[in-house]
């Protein structure tokens, strides 16, 4: 769930925008460097953005019987890395606001912070940590996607609780209120997204080994998995 247009007071909307800016600027810099060194990357990155947008349009069945869509941040971060996801996520959220009336422009900063920054970084950190301890790829992918999804909604709960503190108990009460509402729906959805991501990754391992190796997800001969994909990233 994205925070809807106009939901946050102006000061909060601006503050979250300011908080998100350094991460997006870093992503823009690394994307610009990548495109300048490898012009053909524009198309690959555009395809990755389209994939992220389409992924967020998939309806997944929830354990509670309802239906929702995956955030796609976990899979995106594992495939394309968090800095690039900050840019692709921002583009996706902008498209969702203008093409689907989902989310908003005044809440773009807050949504970018939760979905395009915290979600990808948290999911990617868990994925890398598990890979370091030689946990099987699919287990690492599951927990990466699970944590990315859940952390996104934890941050959204914090954002809403800060904007609308409870009249009786202030920020902690509001956090409990929003957190418990999200927990009912989002924990099952995070499990669902983790499972879906594993199934997608299994199919990708079978059908797109070349692309996964190029993206650094799979092992290349004589090279460590998840190593930088290009000289640009190695330098960075």
């Amino acid at each position, binding site marked *: 769930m*994205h925070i*809807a*247009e*106009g*939901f*946050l007071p*102006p000061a909060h*909307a601006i503050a979250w925008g300011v908080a998100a800016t350094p991460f997006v600027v870093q992503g823009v810099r690394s*994307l*610009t460097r990548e*495109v*300048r060194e490898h*012009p*053909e990357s*524009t*198309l*690959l*990155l*555009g*395809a*990755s*953005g*389209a994939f992220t*947008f*389409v*992924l967020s*349009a*998939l309806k*997944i*069945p929830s354990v509670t019987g309802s239906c929702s869509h995956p955030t796609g941040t976990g*899979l995106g971060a594992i495939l394309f890395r968090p800095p690039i996801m900050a840019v*692709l996520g921002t*583009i996706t959220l*902008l*498209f969702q606001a*203008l*093409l*689907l*009336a*989902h989310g*908003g*422009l*005044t809440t773009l900063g807050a949504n970018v912070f939760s979905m395009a920054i915290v979600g990808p970084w948290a999911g990617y950190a868990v994925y890398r940590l598990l890979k370091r301890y030689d946990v099987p790829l699919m287990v690492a992918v599951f927990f990466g996607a699970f944590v990315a999804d859940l952390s996104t909604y934890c941050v959204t709960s914090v954002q809403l609780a800060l904007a*609308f503190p*409870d009249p*009786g*108990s202030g920020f902690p*009460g*509001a956090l409990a*209120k929003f957190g418990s*509402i999200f927990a009912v729906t989002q924990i099952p959805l995070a499990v669902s997204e983790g*499972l*879906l991501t594993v199934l*997608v990754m*299994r*199919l*990708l391992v079978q*059908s*797109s080994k070349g*692309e996964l190796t190029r993206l650094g997800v799979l092992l290349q001969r004589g090279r460590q998995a998840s190593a930088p994909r290009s000289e640009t990233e190695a330098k960075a």
Partner: protein
Amino acid sequence: MLPIDAAAHSSRWRRRHPVDKAVLGLGLTALAISLPPWPGAALVLAAALALLLGPAGVPPRKLWRAYRIPLGFCVTGALTLLVQVGGPEGYVGWADGGAARAGELLLRTSAASLGVLLLAFTTPLSDLLPRLVRAGVPAPVVDVALVTYRMSFLLLDSMSRVRQAQAARLGHTTRAATWRSLAGLGATAFVRAFDRASRLQAGLAGRGYDGTLHVLVPDVRVSRRFVALSLALLLALTALTLVLERLLP
């Protein structure tokens, strides 16, 4: 093509410069969140609705189909303000003034959403994106956004066909089959996106692609009259809010 974008391509204001529409649409959104919800956001909501259905000529049914999505989120979010945690009534009870706060939030979000919808329903993204370079967005980012925009529709169309094919093969009859089908759909999106990117790359390389995507942008100018009228409307709404705020209870 998605319904809002399709409507934008055939909008009466399609030939207007995006800056004209951004001043009006985003100006209304800014007023909706910065003025007092009552009567400010209510006035903005009425003005945005009148502009959408009147001069902009957006069909009411299309507007409702797009508007009900943010409205659903607004209602769900506003409901949480009706209750409070802790207090004399126990763990959860009715919040004092919760209904008023929920009503104000609902007014603010619904008015702000209509402001953005005014821009979205009259300005195709293909008109907006190339102009972002002038606004200071780096050209490579705009190029990536343009490729994402164009490829998204192809992929969505492709996904719709795959979903139909899966349904025809009873791919959604059981929970397990649904999961398998969804995974197939996600993987197919990835494979097709990368396949299209590599084919596009080969095609562009044959045409001397140097890393910059040149697209034709309709040659339209910013209308000073339209911008002036938009600013006058925004000022009038602000003044009316300040006056009514003192007069109304």
